[in-house]
């Protein structure tokens, strides 16, 4: 039993220790005029859904409830935000050409339809980010229409 105690102690120390490791926070108060929500007329329920489910990784402003600040979750988020923003940044939507918008919309539709986005490892912690059947249909339809109107 003693060995178990020692291992537990080490793990606890490590767990507490990593809490003090610095991580970069993805925070910005400025919503640029190129933001997806500002340039498109997005119905409020869809707007809400996207902000809860996608903006944490695909915008300049991540919401940080306490659990997002706990390691190793914070690290996990930091890595995905960097990668996610490089793929798609909703804040910079209007700086894309029509061709690229259409391309991104196609990609967004594919990701939501196939359930690849939001990432499963993320919805594990953020239950509210999951899409119901109905929400999927609604958001996909909106994105389809937006693509056709470009």
């Amino acid at each position, binding site marked *: *039993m003693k060995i178990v105690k020692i291992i*537990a102690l080490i793990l*606890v120390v490590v767990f507490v220790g990593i809490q003090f490791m610095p991580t970069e926070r993805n925070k910005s108060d400025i919503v640029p005029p190129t933001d997806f929500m500002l340039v498109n007329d997005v119905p409020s329920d869809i707007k809400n859904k996207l902000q809860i489910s996608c903006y944490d990784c695909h915008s300049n402003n991540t919401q940080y409830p306490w659990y997002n600040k706990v390691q190793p979750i914070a690290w*996990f988020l930091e890595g995905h935000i960097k990668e996610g923003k490089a793929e798609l940044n909703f804040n910079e939507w209007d700086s894309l*050409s029509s*061709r*690229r918008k259409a391309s991104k919309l196609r990609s967004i539709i594919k990701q939501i339809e196939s359930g690849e986005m939001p990432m499963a*490892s993320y919805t594990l912690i953020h239950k509210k980010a999951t899409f119901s059947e109905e929400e999927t249909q609604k958001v996909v339809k909106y994105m389809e229409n937006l693509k056709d109107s470009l």
Partner: protein
Amino acid sequence: MSKLKLVLGVVAITFVTLTAVSCKDAKNEKNNSTDHHSETNMDEDHSKMNHDNSDGHHDGEKKEMAMNGNGTSQAVLNDYFNLKDALVADDNAKAKNLGAVLATSLGSLDISKYTEAEKSELKEIVEDAVEHAEHISESEMDHQREHFKTLSKDITDMVAITGTKTTLYEQFCPMYDGGSTWLSMSKDIKNPYYGGKMLTCGKVQKEIN
């Protein structure tokens, strides 16, 4: 004692998640490194030097361009067709390499001889197409094919501006993703979206000269 077990459990779970997450990232990194390799095996294809760039700035830059393809739309088309053939053959690894090759030749496409309007159109096409080619260089088969669809549209639009030396065939398969097109040098149908699963789905929709 049970409290200790609980703590132990929580910590263990935390570590398992952490490792799971880092495994995924490691996989991505590995993919990236294969892209870099592939950049080297394309030199043979287009060794023609880029000529009459008479203002003669930056020798180094010129050399790099020649190495990464000769900057013509024909080089882009060649790389696109090679990629298409890899998808037809259901060869994920080869398509990854060729996606990276195509991204490079797209990036070095010389657009200086076109009108301003064409230039800006070509720039947008290239920007979009490079992104899809890069995705193809790091994805699994299904995902490669998704990106190949939009990529094909980009390349078709490019050809509408740049023209083509040889006759091309725009082919269409109504079954893949609500109908999808691609380009081919031959009339025969070999479907890059299905490969061996449904090789002959499609028909020639248009001849491009």
